[in-house]
């Protein structure tokens, strides 16, 4: 058994969210530098260059890369031998979000119908997973909603097959067009049920760009999808080009004999993603 003080968690997660708002991950920057070489459209090249300059400027000035500093989504993996002391862990994570967003944009309304800003960007969306051991691992996504809004979920019957799923992904990207701020990172969940397929798509966005599924058939699906998406012509910011997506990450789940659910969760070209272990 290991005791973890929730005050330490609050501080570490607060710092992580603060930092991640102005510092984009290295795997993304690397992928963008490669994309700049691969892009054929001069306007597309300029857009990628501008986004790389913006990332460097934001980092050097410690200001957010994008005004939409997102809704904080936290994935918490807790070892079953961890004991939290000093308060409630959930409250500590909400406090961490409140701390970090004191200088970031408050983009959350407390009620979807009444639409009054919560004033401190809480609540963060927290997903818990109990795992073996005594570790504590927290991943964060500060998700901009321009791309979230263009994401989709569909409960298909099995007869739709792999080809039907590919068409659904392409239709999603095509109707998102310039709105979701391409070059995109495309998270896809396949299988499970209505609730878990969306989560799988979101978790796929946590994977570093360039990683591929350990399942061979899934890795093949990822590679084929990326190629097909980049043939759509949408390009950086929708201004035309051959780089519409940087990566397609697919997570698969066991599902019922009657169903073939799919969710496509889009991330804009500003993936605010980070992980810490305590």
């Amino acid at each position, binding site marked *: 058994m290991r005791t973890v003080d929730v005050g330490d968690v609050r501080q570490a997660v607060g710092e992580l969210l603060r930092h991640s708002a102005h510092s984009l991950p290295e795997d993304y920057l690397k992928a963008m530098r490669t994309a700049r070489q691969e892009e054929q459209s001069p306007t597309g090249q300029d857009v990628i260059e501008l986004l790389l300059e913006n990332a460097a400027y934001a980092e050097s000035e410690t*200001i*957010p890369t994008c005004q939409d500093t997102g809704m904080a989504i936290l994935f918490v993996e807790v070892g079953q031998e961890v004991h939290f002391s000093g308060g409630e862990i959930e409250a500590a994570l909400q406090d961490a979000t409140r701390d970090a967003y004191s200088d970031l*944009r408050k983009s959350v309304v407390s009620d979807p119908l009444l639409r009054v800003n919560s*004033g401190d960007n809480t609540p963060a969306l927290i997903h818990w997973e109990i795992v073996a051991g005594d570790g504590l691992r927290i991943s964060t996504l500060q998700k901009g909603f321009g791309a979230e809004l263009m994401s989709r979920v569909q409960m298909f019957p099995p007869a739709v097959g792999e080809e039907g799923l590919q068409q659904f992904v392409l239709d999603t990207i095509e109707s998102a067009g310039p709105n979701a*701020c391409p070059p995109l990172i495309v998270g896809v969940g396949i299988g499970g049920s209505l609730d878990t397929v969306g989560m799988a798509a979101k978790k796929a966005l946590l994977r570093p760009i360039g990683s591929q599924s350990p399942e061979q058939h899934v890795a093949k699906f990822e590679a084929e999808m990326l190629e097909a998406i980049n043939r759509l012509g949408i390009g950086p*910011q929708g*201004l035309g080009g051959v780089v519409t997506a940087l990566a397609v990450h697919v997570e698969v789940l066991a599902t019922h004999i009657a169903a073939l659910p799919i969710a496509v969760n889009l991330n*804009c070209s500003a993936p605010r993603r980070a992980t810490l272990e305590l």
Partner: protein
Amino acid sequence: MARTVEAPLDEATIKSLRAGERVVMTGKIYAARDAAHKRLVEAMQKGEALPLPLSGQVIYYVGPAPAKPGSVIGPAGPTTSGRMDPYTLPLLERGVAGLIGKGSRSEEVKRALVRHRAVYFGAVGGASALLARQIRSSRILAYPDLLSEAVRELEVEEFPLIVINDCHGGDAYLAAREAYRSDGGRSQRSR
């Protein structure tokens, strides 16, 4: 060098702009996004006075992040314009001449841009820290309770834009996509 257009926009400038053209904008523009649009249109329906001028003016769909101490404004890139489509016609009818955002507009808005001689410009989404550098002043004009969604008057200097929809029916997104499409229109045809 991209040519400079002055805000507010005059008729000759509006007519001369073509989809796909890159420009820089200098002058006064007005920030408003979702919640502010809802209030503005409700105020118009009730016949109330509006907190900003409309004729010839440019509206920028932006909800800036908080400014760092000593800065004029925080990161201030465009938000998705399509969400403002349901509120855009009454604004164009009252003479709004320019819209700045990112992403596609509805067919109805595109037709209204032609009818009312107005232009939709795109700014690069996510280039928000750099775009904020081109904003020289920022002042809240109305709805401070909406926080980042308040209506602001912004003075911009050489604010980089691309004409997406001009007043002649041109559409830069559609033209650019067709130019680089290499799937034989597979996705579109299947719908």
